[in-house]
């Protein structure tokens, strides 16, 4: 048993953190947010040069064959810096579909472009009534000769504005909530029949609502089994949840740090507010909540290697519950402890709070995952 990073992992952590410290302060972040699609091409190229975009891919595909811990390190660092670039939709989700479900030809066509920073992805999954259920799909994929025709509407597609490729979940047989009959399709973002409405999200990312009207794709668009794609979708989304847990720990860690610094410097009644016991104890509880969340984030990362899919899903769900609970508490209290200044756009802490809040609403909130764990057998 060992919870420490290896020498290489430590170096990775230092190098990512170092780069982000230089390139990602609060003012720079505001500039990146104003670029097209809400993130910086220069930063993305920097990630590519650092090798971050190739981390999880197998060496045979041109990547570094890194594992769950490396992903945890990168996501945590990105959380600390509130990174806007589409690492999650491109490397974790797009890359996840390619790694877990794609053919050799699909891998060869897309992975090198991801690694070089020349292609980003977006995951078109959410529908008007699906909420967090991955099996709730009405977007249809109908057979069309060798290929398929996709029709439907997808919402809040993160990086939907800039993405070069979309991964679309679509149903070819069965009823709206059937577990079978769902496939994942790789669709070029400029395919004919796609229309987008783009907008920023609460936490400063950019998203799109995307309508697919008779979008024709070839047979090479299907990732894995078109009729039984749900296990791969669930697998990839579990990876994404795990990555979000790590990102959230980074966000919580940094926002607690900022808050403690503020408590040391902000004076009222002639003394730093950090000298008041009611506030000290709140901060101590936030620390405990952070460490509990960190433990479960590690747990989820380790679960990526579990052989049993239901055990993996349960571990990830449990982690998302803890992250949700800790995140809500820490986020709300960072604002409270800052007082009025915490309410302003100009203070950094509010942006951390907003990101935490949106992470809670991504791929299942604490209530949703609590029910999932509860429906399964117990954890302990």
């Amino acid at each position, binding site marked *: *048993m*060992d*919870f*420490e*990073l*290896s020498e290489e*992992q430590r170096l990775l952590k230092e190098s990512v953190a170092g780069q982000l410290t230089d390139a990602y302060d609060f003012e720079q972040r505001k500039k990146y947010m104003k670029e097209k699609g809400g993130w910086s091409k220069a930063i993305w190229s920097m990630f590519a040069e650092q090798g971050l975009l190739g981390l999880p891919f197998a060496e045979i595909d041109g990547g570094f064959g890194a594992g769950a*811990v490396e992903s945890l390190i990168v996501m945590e660092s990105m959380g600390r810096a509130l990174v806007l670039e589409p690492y999650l939709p491109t490397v974790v989700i797009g890359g996840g579909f390619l790694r877990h479900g794609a053919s050799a030809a699909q891998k060869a066509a897309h992975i090198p472009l991801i690694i070089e920073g020349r292609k980003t992805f977006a995951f078109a999954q959410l529908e008007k009534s699906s909420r967090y259920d991955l099996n709730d799909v009405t977007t249809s994929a109908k057979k069309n000769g060798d290929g398929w025709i996709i029709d439907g509407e997808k919402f809040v597609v993160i990086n939907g504005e800039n993405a070069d490729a979309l991964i679309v979940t679509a149903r070819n047989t069965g009823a709206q909530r059937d577990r079978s009959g769902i496939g994942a399709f790789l669709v070029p973002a400029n395919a004919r029949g796609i229309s987008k409405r783009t907008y920023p999200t609460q936490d400063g990312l950019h998203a799109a609502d995307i309508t697919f009207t008779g979008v024709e794709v070839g047979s090479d668009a299907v990732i894995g089994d078109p009729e039984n794609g749900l296990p791969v979708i669930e697998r990839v989304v579990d990876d994404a949840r795990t990555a979000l847990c790590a990102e959230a720990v980074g966000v919580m860690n940094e926002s607690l740090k900022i808050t*403690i610094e503020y*408590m*040391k410097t902000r004076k009222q009644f002639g003394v730093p507010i*950090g*000298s008041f*016991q009611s506030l*000290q*104890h709140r*901060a*101590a*509880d936030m*620390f*405990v909540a952070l*460490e*509990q*969340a*960190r*433990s*479960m984030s*590690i*747990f989820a*990362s*380790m679960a990526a290697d579990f052989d049993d899919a239901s055990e993996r899903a349960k571990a990830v769900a*449990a982690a998302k*519950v*803890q992250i949700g609970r800790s995140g809500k508490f820490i986020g709300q209290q960072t604002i409270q402890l800052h007082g009025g200044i915490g309410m302003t756009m100009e203070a950094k802490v509010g942006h951390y709070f907003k990101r935490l809040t949106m992470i809670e609403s991504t791929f299942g909130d604490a209530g949703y995952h*609590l*029910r999932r*764990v*509860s429906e399964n057998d*117990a*954890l*302990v």
Partner: protein
Amino acid sequence: MNFAFTKEEQAFREEVRQFLRDNAPPGMRRKMVEGRHIPKEELVTWWRILNKKGWGVSHWPKEYGGTGWTPVQEYILREELQMHPAPTPLAFGVNMVGPVIYTFGNKAQQKYYLPRIANVDDWWCQGFSEPGAGSDLASLKTKAERQGSKWIINGQKTWTTLAQYADMIFCLCRTDPTAKKQSGISFMLIDMKSKGITVRPIQTIDGGHEINEVFFDDVEVPIENLVGEVNKGWDYAKFLLGNERTGIARVGVSKERIRRIKELASKIEACGRPLIQDPTFREKLVTCEIELKALELTQLRVVAGESKHGRDKANPASSMLKIKGSEIQQTTTELLLEVIGPFAMPYDEHPDSSHRAMDWTMQIAPSYFNNRKVSIYGGSDEIQRNIITKAVLGL
């Protein structure tokens, strides 16, 4: 990074389980499961079995009878004891005064007391708290005055757990009334049979008798019973209080209690179906289980860190483990209370009496009441937050 136990550790866990199956008296186990009183003789017999195996003081240095185990092995032993369940060694001797004696005591004290602690030849109790010195422990007033070759002790200790069984008490006494409060305290080892000691029971809200008041009225203590240096007792007390880490969260106890909650909630009907199928109840249970899983991992992070780097004397992580561990222990007793519903009500005025056929539900409400103590003793949750505030957050 890897949180799997090694093959050797897994084999060790199996060895511990097998030993417990073969050697822990089944009657004692049943009493533990049902939260019933275990008589002193039964406890001592069990701890001697454990000591004979060499596991009574496993975490002590080898030269004093310890095993040289890694913190992970110690963690496994403790967890398996808690989950079996079987009583863990008497903390006052094994985890508190023992380490103080082998760290700060003289050779004669080590030679005499340590084997007796290991074999429970002496039952130890703790003389720290006083009526006027709770969280503000250093304000204690019990005084020790030097008179020739003796110390004369006068004062009162309170909340003294199982003093009614004790042969010895370790006491913090004020030896310099003029010094600043922390710097005039000494650490004494006192024979409970000394003339002038009176033990008075305190009944707690669960109806039980665990704790006592201990009065000292001109009690004579030989000078060789002082540990370390005079007026340095506060340092030894801080060492003692910061020492207990691997077990402080009592993860195994909560795991065992959750097992019991599930067992009972599967049998007990509510609204025409087993309570365990009630979504509201289930969500509370699962929330608690997730918190417990997180705590277990937090604890393992601490234990693994200690295995790798040795023990940092003042690891503030123990405060975090204490806070969360207390919360979860209390939640599990609360859930157990909820499971039995209205059958929590009957009260047996003499729960220790053996002539009654005790119903297993009888101890559940008392256990709930009794467990309110865990967030108060050993440094209350609020004191733990003060420690985190200073030692971790630097406020």
